[in-house]
């Protein structure tokens, strides 16, 4: 009940947007721009013949692979850079230069290196999501409060335990923030990458719908599905923030 009351205003806004869209299309008698209902029927059509699921699956697979590799790479590297000052001063300038380069700018090089198969978008997603995660993890280690490190020092625990019980869990909330950012960027990038050179995925679906007969109902359907899946992915990451061992960082 409370949830319904809370989400009522946003539902109203969504309904208003759809209504304005619908009315505008009807009033302007547009032949190309679809009504919301046309988008729905177009989506159902694609869902029925199965192509929609293939596109969604392809996009999710690429994001999963690229983001997964980035996680495996960024977290150990970020922890190392956060803990070892020499590693930080050596590698940080490089990452600070690479980080602002839009993943889109990497597309030609990705195609050159990896061709037009799955490897290209996976590489682009990796590039896009790895830097925010490295940075957040490093910041996480750097911002561990000194009192905790002192306590650990006081008890004289071995190095492995120090990492397992103090450094990693103290950094975990920041790692999760980095993963949220990283996954968000990854989802942005997969769609952009698929628009260029592939034959599957939601990005491809959008471009193909336009090219193959101005099916703008499917273009908009693709956009809305991308938005909804992005929301769901962020929701999954937010579940991680609910873990009891990291909640200390988010309460107060």
């Amino acid at each position, binding site marked *: 009940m409370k949830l319904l009351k809370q989400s009522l205003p946003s539902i109203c806004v969504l309904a208003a947007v759809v209504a304005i869209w619908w009315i505008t299309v009807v009033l302007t008698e547009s032949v190309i721009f679809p009504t919301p209902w046309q988008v729905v029927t177009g989506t159902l059509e694609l869902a029925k013949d199965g192509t929609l699921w293939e596109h969604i699956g392809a996009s999710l697979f690429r994001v999963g692979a690229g983001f997964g590799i980035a996680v495996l790479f960024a977290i150990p590297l970020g922890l190392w850079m956060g803990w070892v000052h020499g590693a930080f001063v050596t590698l940080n300038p490089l990452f600070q230069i690479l980080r602002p380069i839009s993943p889109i700018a990497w597309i030609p090089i990705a195609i050159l290196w990896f061709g037009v198969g799955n490897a290209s978008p996976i590489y682009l997603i990796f590039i896009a999501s790895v830097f925010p995660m490295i940075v957040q993890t490093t910041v996480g280690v750097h911002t561990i409060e000194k009192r905790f490190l002192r306590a650990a*020092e006081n*008890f004289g625990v071995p190095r492995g335990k120090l990492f397992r019980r103090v450094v990693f869990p103290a950094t975990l909330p920041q790692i999760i923030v980095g993963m949220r950012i990283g996954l968000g960027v990854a989802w942005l990038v997969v769609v952009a990458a698929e628009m260029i050179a592939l034959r599957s995925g939601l990005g491809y679906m959008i471009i193909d719908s336009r090219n193959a007969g101005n099916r703008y109902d499917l273009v908009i359907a693709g956009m809305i599905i991308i938005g909804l899946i992005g929301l769901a992915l962020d929701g999954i990451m937010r579940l991680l923030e609910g873990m009891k061992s990291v909640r200390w960082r988010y309460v107060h």
Partner: protein
Amino acid sequence: MFINTKIHVQNVRKGFAKDDGYLDVIADLDFKVGDSEFVAIVGPSGCGKTTLMNIIAGFLAPDSGSVQVDGVPRDGPNRKGIMITQQGSVFPWLTVRENLLFGLDEGNPEREQLAAEYAELVGLKGFENNYPHELSGGMLKRVEIARALVVKPEILYMDEPFSALDALMSLRMQNELLRILAKERHTVLLITHDVEEAVHLADRILVLSPRPTRIQAAFDVVLPRPRRVSSPEAQELRVAILKELGVTESV
């Protein structure tokens, strides 16, 4: 005074470089703490009490002089003496039980049992699986004390341990501490700005001067335990210490 010296602070000096020169914090401190003695150090704020404690506990090196524990010069912190601070350092990402296990060796077969035992000792039975953010300030202090005691330290370094608590909780924790210390003797070094707390707890009270700090006065507290801070003798001692700190009170 006492038979065995536990801690010997020998001609310790410490200063810090500042933007506009040098700040002399500890002038020349020399004192001993006996085995199982409870020594309280009081002093005006900013006099370098915490710096002194960090030096004694091994987190900071003195500019000159040395600190000896059991006759051995200190070269870093170790679990023989555990520090408890005002801010506290209970790990918020570990449960109460995991915090208590933290300092115990993984190979120790009695670790789980010890953790449970000390949780009970400080009145945290039933909260072992709670996270620190689910506990009150007083309970958090109990976790910290239990985590320190469970590794069987010989010395407790307490730097304003109860200052962040309200007056009532602070008094309650003082009584708790005395109850626990009666069970297992430890050498305790307590830093506080609360003279009443010092009179309540300590065997001996050292009064530090303003910066650069030195020992200005020392008081043996010969009051029988359990002490009543409101007793005339205790009040007399309190007034005398406050006078050393430059606070005169009309009685």
